């Protein structure tokens, strides 16, 4: 991180103005600590998010002896994903699609209503940066103290503070990286293995990787991530309109800003140009410039300004959550009501409701039985000595239940069809009983022989009907039976 003096910054701006600089030095942000309702709410969200992240892998959930007892476990090695009493297979990947659609539309809806609150409160980049800043403040003091020490000469006092800060940052980063791994392997087991040096190389590599990214992104990169790396600030403008609640400086009330105490008959507005909102900002911007790319809508400037307004005996909430439309109305001395229902929010809300309903129904009616049928590619059909035609198929039966199950298979659409399973030597019979072990996919080679009566262009439709002999659950797979073309 580069540090530059005020004079350097001035020079840089002048050079930029003359178009002489292709590259900009980073202007270091020293956010000042603030107190107030917004900050308290932000702490609460931070504590909730971090607790959720660190504690969730340790929650236990009993599922029987053969299953892992971790409540949330993405067991990529065994290709099973556990969420409390829900267990998903890789074949259920469309639930993830649904979840991503809901997350995206949810983000659109929230943004169109209340701006970038995701960015300001719940984005991991914000949460961990906030945590790291808290540590920094604890060890190195608040804004002025930090700036003074950083600008001053090297001292032992500065050195140990820096050392302690980075050590604690690395500690938190390591804890974060370690907790990430616990979502993929059993938490207590991997913790013991980790310290005994017996965990897999992947565990160490990924812990190291996420330790490094957490430390670099939350400790060093901070607002640079939001401004230069993240795509969300770039397209958030499309979600916002003049009816969205955003952190807003009430220019109509604040301007013209004048330094110092207000007296009756002053021409100045409420803003005393103290700069508290700027020094409090974690991305280093001036909210009075209006809504801008770098603003993450965290509202810490609101707390900072409220405090100053109180001291200056002016009404609070000079910076507040408001809509652009309301600000324009207030400037005219009117007032508008916040409109929750607008075309854009209705569209986002309907899309969200639709996604929730579709995924909810899909989840509620989720089958524990999966069937796929693959017709042999060669030979397409075999003529038998008795004149019958025979087709070969590969059946994959997914038994997602936790019990060994006997399935019964028959073929619809071709009367007299006889089935044989060649691997196990089952049949020939009109109905075949196919056993599949719990939580596995059974593969069967099925031969269907008979006289297809409805061949057209060399094929006719047949249905493979599979039913669970215990629960009676049925599933049907539409396939084809093939024969010589032009023989119909």
């Amino acid at each position, binding site marked *: 991180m*580069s540090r530059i003096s005020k004079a350097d910054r001035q020079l840089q701006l002048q050079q*930029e*103005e003359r*178009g002489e*600089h*292709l*590259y*900009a*030095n*980073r202007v270091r942000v020293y956010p000042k600590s603030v107190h107030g309702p917004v900050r308290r709410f932000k702490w609460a969200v931070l504590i909730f998010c971090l607790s959720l992240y660190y504690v969730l892998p340790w929650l236990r959930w009993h599922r029987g002896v053969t299953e892992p007892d971790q409540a949330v476990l993405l067991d990529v090695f065994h290709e099973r994903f556990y969420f409390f009493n829900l267990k998903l297979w890789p074949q259920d990947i469309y639930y993830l699609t649904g979840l991503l659609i809901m997350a995206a539309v949810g983000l659109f809806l929230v943004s169109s209503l209340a701006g970038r609150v995701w960015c300001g409160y719940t984005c991991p980049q914000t949460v961990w940066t906030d945590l790291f800043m808290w540590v920094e403040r604890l060890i190195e003091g608040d804004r002025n103290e930090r700036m003074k020490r950083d600008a001053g000469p090297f001292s032992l006092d500065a050195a140990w503070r820096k050392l302690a800060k980075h050590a604690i940052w690395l500690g938190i980063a390591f804890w974060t990286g370690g907790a990430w791994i616990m979502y993929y392997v059993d938490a207590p087991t991997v913790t013991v293995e980790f310290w005994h040096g017996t965990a897999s190389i992947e565990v160490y590599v990924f812990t190291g990787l996420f330790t490094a990214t957490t430390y670099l992104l939350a400790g060093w990169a901070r607002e*640079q991530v939001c401004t*230069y790396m993240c795509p969300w600030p770039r397209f958030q403008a499309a979600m916002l309109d003049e009816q969205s609640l955003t952190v807003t400086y009430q220019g109509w009330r604040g301007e013209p800003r004048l330094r110092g105490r207000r007296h009756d008959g002053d021409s100045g507005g409420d803003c005393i140009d103290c700069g508290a909102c700027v020094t409090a900002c974690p991305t280093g911007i001036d909210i009075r410039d209006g809504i801008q790319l770098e603003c993450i809508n965290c509202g810490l400037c609101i707390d900072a300004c409220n405090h100053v307004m109180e001291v200056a005996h002016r009404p609070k909430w000079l910076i507040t959550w408001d809509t652009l439309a309301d600000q324009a109305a207030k400037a005219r001395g009117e007032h508008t009501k916040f409109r929750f229902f607008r075309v854009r929010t209705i569209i986002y809300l309907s899309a969200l409701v639709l996604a929730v309903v579709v995924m909810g129904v899909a989840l509620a009616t989720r089958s524990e039985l999966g069937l796929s049928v693959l017709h*042999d*590619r*060669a*030979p*397409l059909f*075999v*003529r*038998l*000595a*008795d*004149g019958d035609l*025979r087709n*070969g198929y590969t059946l994959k039966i997914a038994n997602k239940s936790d019990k060994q199950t006997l399935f019964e298979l028959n073929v619809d659409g071709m009367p007299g069809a006889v089935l*044989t399973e*060649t*691997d196990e030597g089952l049949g020939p019979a009109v109905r075949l009983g196919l056993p599949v072990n719990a939580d596995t996919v059974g593969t069967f*080679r099925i*031969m269907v022989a008979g006289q297809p009566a409805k061949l057209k262009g060399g094929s006719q439709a047949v249905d493979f009907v599979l039913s669970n002999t215990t629960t009676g659950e049925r599933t049907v797979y539409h396939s084809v039976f093939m024969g010589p073309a032009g023989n119909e």
Partner: protein
Amino acid sequence: MPTKIEKDAHTGRDTTGHEWDGLKELNNPLPKWWLYILLATIVWAVGYCVLYPSVPYGTGYYHGLLGYSQRKTVDADVAAVAAQRAGSMDKIRQISFADIRKDPQLLAVAETAGRITFANNCQPCHGAGGGGRPGYPALAAGDWMWGGTLEAIQQTVTHGIRSGDPDARNSAMPRFGVDNMLKPEEIQSVADYVMTLFGKPEPGKDVTAGRKLFTDNCAVCHGDAGQGNREVGAPRLAAHIHLHANTRDDVVAQVTNPHMGVMPNWDQRLDPATIKAVTLYVHSLGGGE
């Protein structure tokens, strides 16, 4: 080239001079750390070029300090797979078919090895999946000339048919037409009779003479009812599928001057374990007995 560089009133910065549907872009400077990352990737690339194969020259190339080669990696992988396979294939060679089938994992190995071997060696004649074609028997249909048990298939694959191997399966059909054993009109009437054996008689045709000729000349090998004889590899004629197609003309041609196919003795090219594997695969195609 940008032509309309303007000064933005709010920020005092220049625009890039480009315009997209009325949108203009400020010409902001790139953060310096971004430049440093670019420089770091260049340093990385230089290091990579020193350590790994990089610069081609004429007929060769610079091998890099680490001496890395993808060919070496592949060789090592192939050797590892061969070593892994050796155990299974040894076991397949040693134990009986019945014991292989009792071990699902070993059976899966055998059928996979058999499938690959079949595709590389057998498929050109017998067709993918053993579907067969005129002159080359279908292996999936369950109509065998020499037997369809695992042992019979293993014997056929190992020693071949008319291959010159002392244990090869040998048989010959007399050239009834070419060698004047039957007159052409007699061959015609035998053909009429053979067509009745699998349900394709010519309506109103009297096949008494044909039946008599068949009993005298053909039944000794093909059986009274055309049921075939595996001892001598005589095909079953009373079936809907035939080695040399199903039309009456095909029958006449075969009686007049029979085709007699040759299958190589595969023990010349395949080791015993692979032959057992391909036997299991052929047996699994749907015709196994």
